[in-house]
């Protein structure tokens, strides 16, 4: 596959919403261990609202679509993940303005912009035990996987999942988990896990 169209993007967001709903309890449990236990509910609430918005009106291009996603997440998720995921999708939108579809290069460029926005807002570095830890290696894998979208997103999804698992031994330095100090060690980061779900559903959408 070499083109990721608006309808693919809609399919991705819907698949992500379904996956987040399915994994809601797990995400909240992860958050309960080192945060405040709402990450699953936050993400589900946000994506349910997004899907409703997407169903109500068609988007002219990827830029408009991601802007809708970003604005909706901003105003429905709350918490730390609201501005982070909201800003992430807004940045995807900015970098996709007027585009009817992504090729691999455009996808990588947009997602890298998204990562940069998350880091600008949240000031997290690699290893701080946040969603950045999943997104950053995933984009490296994607960039190194060539022009086939199915292959590239598959590599990204695998890298994100692997990295999410590897957040467990880290000591949190950002977000609520940082309040726990040493006690944050031994638990996976919830945001890294929701990020992995986003990339996994991106990969299955590109395969389909």
């Amino acid at each position, binding site marked *: 596959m070499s083109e990721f169209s608006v309808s693919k993007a809609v399919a991705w967001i819907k698949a992500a919403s379904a996956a987040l709903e399915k994994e809601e309890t797990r995400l909240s449990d992860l958050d*309960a261990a080192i*945060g*405040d236990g709402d990450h699953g509910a936050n993400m589900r609430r946000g994506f349910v609202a997004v899907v409703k918005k997407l169903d109500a009106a068609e988007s002219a291009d990827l830029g408009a679509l991601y802007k809708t996603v970003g604005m909706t997440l901003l*105003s429905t998720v709350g918490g730390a993940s*609201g501005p982070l995921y909201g800003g992430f999708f807004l940045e995807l939108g900015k970098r996709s303005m007027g585009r009817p579809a992504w090729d691999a290069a455009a996808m990588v460029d947009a997602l890298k912009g998204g990562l940069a926005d998350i880091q600008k807002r949240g000031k997290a570095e690699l290893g701080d035990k946040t969603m950045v830890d999943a997104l950053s290696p995933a984009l490296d894998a994607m960039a190194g996987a060539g022009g086939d979208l199915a292959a590239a997103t598959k590599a990204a999804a695998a890298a994100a999942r692997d990295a999410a698992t590897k957040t467990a031994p880290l000591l949190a330095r950002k*977000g609520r988990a940082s309040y726990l100090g040493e006690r944050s060690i031994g638990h996976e980061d919830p945001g890294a896990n929701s990020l992995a779900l986003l990339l996994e559903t991106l990969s299955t959408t590109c395969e389909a």
Partner: protein
Amino acid sequence: MKKLINSPEDVVREALEGMELAHPNHLRVSYEPFYIVRKDAPVKGKVALVSGGGSGHEPMHGGFVGMGMLSAACPGHVFTSPTPDQMFEAGKVVSGGAGILQIVKNYTGDVMNFELAAEMLKEEGIAVETVMTDDDVAVEDSLYTAGRRGVGLTILMEKILGAAAEKGMPLKDIKALGDKIRKSGRSMGMALTACTVPHAGKPSFELAENEMEVGIGIHGEPGRRRVPMAPADQITEMLMEPVLTDLPFNKGDTIILFVNGMGGTPLIELYIVYRKAAAIAEKHGLKIARCLVGSYITSLEMAGASVTALRVDDQMLQLWDAPVNTPALRWGV
């Protein structure tokens, strides 16, 4: 999970409906998006104070909306920071032409969402300043982390800055006073039990009968350490010593001492804690000018307590004593 609720989704909205019905003389409520503003908003020519945060900390913040304290409170879902559109819409309603001061507890989510709201309000031509509270000494302060949490000091700050705004103090000065308060107050809390977020349906952690969590925040998260249960006097020492030595408070300082219940702790126990906290403060040579004892910043039904000490000068004391008329804090009127 046993709660007096109808369904987890409806908790915040229904509680807001109850507040609106119970306090028609103090406040008005918006449901889309959620915010509470004082009845007489906007107050022309005065700085408007906007605060907010996740729900589940009642009476904070909605209970402090009214004359002499907050102009608006923006409640998020339970333990979840509100979204920028809430502070944006509320800000527009309460803005009286003298600018808006946002009081934000230092949590990544709160900080980012209030930042976005400030940007949006500024685009509307409204002057916005923000003060933060990060008074929780349980959390190590470091440039490389999210920093300390904002907890009990928030209430004292809202009262004092609210009085300053009511007196007509300009935005710049209120902001400066807020920053001074931020640097002058410290807190620490502990839990005897966990609490249950309605949507989660089960307690956020498990504690044995002989254990407690010390160094908790206000979101049902576990504390810095789990230690064996102890008598109230010893627990109070575990909270007061780090609070007093962190700033540090010095012999001769005048303070407001605040003993807070986490939501499920009866008042009789808070007075037992206050008794010891006051004794410790006196032993340190501090003068307790005013105090507050009660459940003002809570974690749902969590049992536990926190202590907050704020070093005050005459100006702060006068503002503390100034009239306030809100559902949860009222005097002088």
